[in-house]
């Protein structure tokens, strides 16, 4: 592995509280030097003048579908989509087939044969087969390298089992990434409200999410387990997280770009690219998510990258699969919607996409420090363009953001000292 000299970029590193023009010298996969002007020879010099140099982005919530649903995405294709979006570490949800609920499945995801180009950290299921009947092999998965536990796609329906899972996983230091949804209250295909009434679609109320957020915060208090609320989408959920944090409970939350960019009013026909779970909520809820990103009740931006095959989306809305891809649009949407709009600073945005998720995972990433792994992303934050779905490298194309004008483009992604994206192009 050769050396790289990144010259003249604006370094924005929230962890180290740096926002200044600096050079970075990368050698043997780690950051070897950071300085105002580094004069060293390198195998590769990247002129970052006018560009932002930041820690490689971290996404706590993606679906790479392997094994089981390789026609939607694989670890190879999903990790490349991540790299194109500036991500160097992503956490993959366990709703594969078979479910990632044991050590062998964790090892499978971590195997070099999966051909990941960035760090792909598998999340283990909480219960065997995500069936809410018995605990998955939590300790063995932790030993094999699981980064967290989640039942994503649903909630553990039995509160006693959930409580046991939280007490047990705490022993291994694994946080729980909590998909909050009371299924008996979620029999619909979009947010309940005026728009659902106009479109004649059955609605899902805020209560389906809030009732489990409430339950699991109570259980976090009882067990002391680290609880991270996934894809938070309602004002009521946010209030509960705010309250939990005020009381010093180990609770954090993430929001997706689609939940702070779109609301149910954007659904004008039966385009299933607007169908997700949780659904696009009311404008009031969307505004609450944005305010909570600003006041830092929501500390993490995660994509919930959910690739689906065209056949699973190009069908009746109520039958269509939930979710959209997000890795290749997350940086631009976050920058455009949150920073350009004046809601938060670039430093605050990157905190939510680098240092904070690293802290939740308890890993030594999400920073540009001498001696740390050379996971670096470089962006042109002045570049204005329309999102082009055809140019995306994810296997799936399910996104409602095609054609949308955004600002901010990832030009380089370096992972472990290897240039994966070079001037906007994948190197492998």
């Amino acid at each position, binding site marked *: 592995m050769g050396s790289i000299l990144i010259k003249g970029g604006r370094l924005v590193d929230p962890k180290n509280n740096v926002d200044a023009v600096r050079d970075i010298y990368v050698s043997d996969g780690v950051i070897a030097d950071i300085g105002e002007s580094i004069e060293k020879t390198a195998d590769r010099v990247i002129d970052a003048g006018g560009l932002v140099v930041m820690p490689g982005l971290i996404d706590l919530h993606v679906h790479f579908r392997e094994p089981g649903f390789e026609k939607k995405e694989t670890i190879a294709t999903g990790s490349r989509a991540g790299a194109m979006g500036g991500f160097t570490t992503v956490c993959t949800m366990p709703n594969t087939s078979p479910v990632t609920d044991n050590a062998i499945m964790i090892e499978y995801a971590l195997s070099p044969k999966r051909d990941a180009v960035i760090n792909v950290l598998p999340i283990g299921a909480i219960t065997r087969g995500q069936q809410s009947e018995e605990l998955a092999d939590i300790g063995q998965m932790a030993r094999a390298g699981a980064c967290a536990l989640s039942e994503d796609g649903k909630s553990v329906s039995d509160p006693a089992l959930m409580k046991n899972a939280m007490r047990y996983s705490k022993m291994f230091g694994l946080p729980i990434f909590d998909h909050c949804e009371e299924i008996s209250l979620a029999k619909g295909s979009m947010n309940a409200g005026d728009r659902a*009434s106009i479109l*004649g679609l*059955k609605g899902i109320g805020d209560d389906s999410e809030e009732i489990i957020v409430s339950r699991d915060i109570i259980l976090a208090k009882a067990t002391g387990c680290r609880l991270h609320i996934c894809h938070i989408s309602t004002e009521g959920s946010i209030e509960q997280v705010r309250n939990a944090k005020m009381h010093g409970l180990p609770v954090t939350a993430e929001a997706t770009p689609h939940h702070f960019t779109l609301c149910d009013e954007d659904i004008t*026909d039966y385009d299933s690219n607007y169908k997700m779970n949780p659904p696009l909520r009311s404008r009031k809820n969307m505004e609450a998510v944005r305010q909570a990103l600003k006041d830092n009740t929501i500390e993490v931006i995660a994509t919930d990258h959910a690739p689906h095959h065209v*056949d699973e989306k*190009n*069908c009746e*809305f109520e*039958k269509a699969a939930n979710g959209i891809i997000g890795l290749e649009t997350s940086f631009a949407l976050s920058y455009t919607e949150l920073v350009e709009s004046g809601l938060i600073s670039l430093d605050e945005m990157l905190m939510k996409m680098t240092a904070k998720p690293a802290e939740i995972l308890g890993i030594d990433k999400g920073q540009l420090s001498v001696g740390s792994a050379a996971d670096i992303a470089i962006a042109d934050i002045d570049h204005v363009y329309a999102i082009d779905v055809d140019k995306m490298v994810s296997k799936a194309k399910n996104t409602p953001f095609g054609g949308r004008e955004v600002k901010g483009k990832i030009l380089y992604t370096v992972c472990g000292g290897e240039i994966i994206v070079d001037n906007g192009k994948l190197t492998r």
Partner: protein
Amino acid sequence: MYGRKDLLGLRDLSSDEIMTILNTAKEMKEKIDNPSLRTNDLSKSSIVTLFYENSTRTKMSFMLAGEYQGAIVKDLGVSTSSVSKGESLIDTGMTLDQMGTNIMIIRHQLTGAAHILAGNVKASVINAGDGSNEHPTQALLDLYTIMERKGGFKGLKVVILGDISHSRVARSNAFGLTKLGAQVTLAGPSTLVSSSMQSLGVKVSTDIAGAIHDADVVMGLRIQFERQRNMPFPNLREYSSLFGVNDEILKYAKKDVLVMHPGPVNRGVELSTEVIDGKHSVISIQVKNGVAVRMAILKLLSERSKREV
């Protein structure tokens, strides 16, 4: 003038387009009772009915409306077709398209099914009911019946009662009636009438007698047991005594009130037998008008496709 390729719902139609259909239906009605007046206007058209849900009157009404105008009418038996082998709706539609079908009439249990079919075929698509969304031809025949009896819509007070939340009939009627200037109230138990229905420009009420007060039209809807997941009311006896329409309740309405129902009726549940068979009821006239309205729609859509060729 009706220039659209499809008829998917009343939400998107203008009042002019609705009136075009109703006025065309007027010319059609006499052809039902008098076979000598029937024409072969549609002899160059092929029509396929594609019913993913059961139906008596809608399907039969469409098939006869086509045949009274000389069209080729075929029914795709969904349960005996490739659909039962798992063929997707879009693939079924494209197959029928290749066979030269001019008009497809679809009923489907999922909202938006007619829209996705229409977006993928060259043929005209008529929505004969999609999920809990719309049933435009039922609403059009209801509108026609009201127009025939009341002369117009401006200022009419129309109350739609019962299982609103599952009713595509209520929704299509709400869209159509409000566009034509009627005042619409949707009434029923709070578990079956959501307040967010107000976004359709209608009133919502749980007080049946109050809603019926001074009504020009009372439309009952069938309790759709097949769509209920959690029982929204304790039992039928309680429902009919609190939310059903009988002669006593009907006294609150205007003297010349019309009683309507899209059928099939649960006798003694949403409407009492006396009301169903009483002097205010136009339920059987609605059935005849359904054929006239569907004849009009088929004619208008086939005229459009002729212009395209």
